[in-house]
């Protein structure tokens, strides 16, 4: 079972939900795909951390072979190449590693070279395997790192996996939810929260993923995100209260479910609901 946790904006509680779900599931895998700012490891404080560097291929140019035709410059949709003073120059951080410039060069003046863009780490915290993707500052895309994080051999069939997605609904999120069996959308009780919720709601529907919503930071007042769910007929999986104790535990990088029975019960109940939803989905649409 692979569960992706996503939201249209940052700070809604993706990490709170995914970290605590992985913690109550005990024998589970947590994958932090928010490679620009991973923070799940701050809660898990994993041990025996193994590290692997992630590289992409970028072009390198042999000026002697270049005939100045500019086919590479014209081809690049990302404008990562310029032609100045009779030689092409590559803007490495703009390059998306598509390899097209190398293919279109009639003189074979371009070839591939390796460039490190970040790393992935794997460690353990109790029985939870903690995977973290870390992208180097300034890189164009974290997708190669996410691809490596979500490689099939990382998943064991009976071991639940929780994917902590980057915020938003861009390519990097699509890559993170691509192979998920179920998506949990985390939403805040504000109008702004609803706008961003709508973006990820459209995304998971576009991908044909089964989904449900966790309403975070719930207060007694009117909740626009709840209203949105009722209007659209979306399953509400859980309501997490806007509560001081939970906020304090979370902001001191503690895993609430490991610290207090109350939150252990709350997240265990959410986990059971999610498991039921996933089973139901696989039974009705295998």
């Amino acid at each position, binding site marked *: 079972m692979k569960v992706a946790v996503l939201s249209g904006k940052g700070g809604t509680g993706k990490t709170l939900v995914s970290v605590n779900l992985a913690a109550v599931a005990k024998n589970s895998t947590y994958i932090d795909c928010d490679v620009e700012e991973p923070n799940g490891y701050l809660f898990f404080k994993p041990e025996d951390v193994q590290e692997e560097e992630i590289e992409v291929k970028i072009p390198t140019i042999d000026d002697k072979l270049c005939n100045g035709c500019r086919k590479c410059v014209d081809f690049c949709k990302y404008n990562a190449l310029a032609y100045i003073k009779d030689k092409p120059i590559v*803007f490495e951080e703009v390059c998306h590693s598509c390899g097209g410039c190398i293919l279109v060069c009639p003189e074979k003046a371009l070839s591939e070279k390796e460039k490190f863009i970040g790393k992935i780490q794997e460690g353990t915290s109790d029985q939870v395997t903690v995977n973290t993707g870390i992208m180097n500052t300034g890189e164009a895309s974290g997708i190669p790192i996410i691809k490596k994080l979500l490689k099939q051999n990382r998943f064991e069939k009976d071991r639940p996996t929780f994917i902590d997605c980057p915020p938003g609904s861009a390519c990097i999120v699509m890559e993170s939810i691509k192979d998920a069996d179920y998506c949990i959308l985390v939403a805040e009780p504000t109008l702004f929260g609803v706008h961003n919720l709508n973006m990820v709601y459209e995304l998971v529907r576009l991908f044909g993923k089964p989904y449900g919503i966790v309403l975070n930071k719930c207060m007694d007042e009117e909740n626009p995100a709840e209203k949105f769910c009722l209007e659209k007929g979306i399953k509400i999986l859980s309501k997490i209260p806007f509560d001081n104790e939970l906020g304090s535990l979370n902001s001191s990088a503690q895993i609430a479910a490991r610290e207090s029975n109350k939150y252990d019960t709350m997240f265990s109940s959410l986990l059971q609901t999610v498991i039921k939803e996933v089973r139901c989905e696989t039974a009705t649409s295998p």
Partner: protein
Amino acid sequence: MKIAIPVDDKSIETSVCISFGRTPYFLIYDTETKESIFLDNSASASQGGSGIKAAQTVVDNHVEALLTPRCGENAAEVIKAADIRIYKSITGFANDNINAFIEGKLSLLKEIHAGFHHHGGK
């Protein structure tokens, strides 16, 4: 000497565009012949790297100076590699800037910003 200015309209009375990479047009002005030509900036609709592509247009038109309110680091790298000097434009219209440049009243652009990559005008 030819100079380039990012501009909002295809007219000598135009205002200077606040963006270099995503300006709709470039005004190329020749200080000797007093001729102006307007170029479409094909980079304005780019998904990314518009500064690099816009700078390429400027370089390909063999100008010696660029007058712009601001410039990102990638664009500046292209412009500087081509030995083109970047001057900070003053508030006002394109022709005010041309006159100020001819009178030697413009200073070189010192602040090169890190670009707005994927962050829309932050």
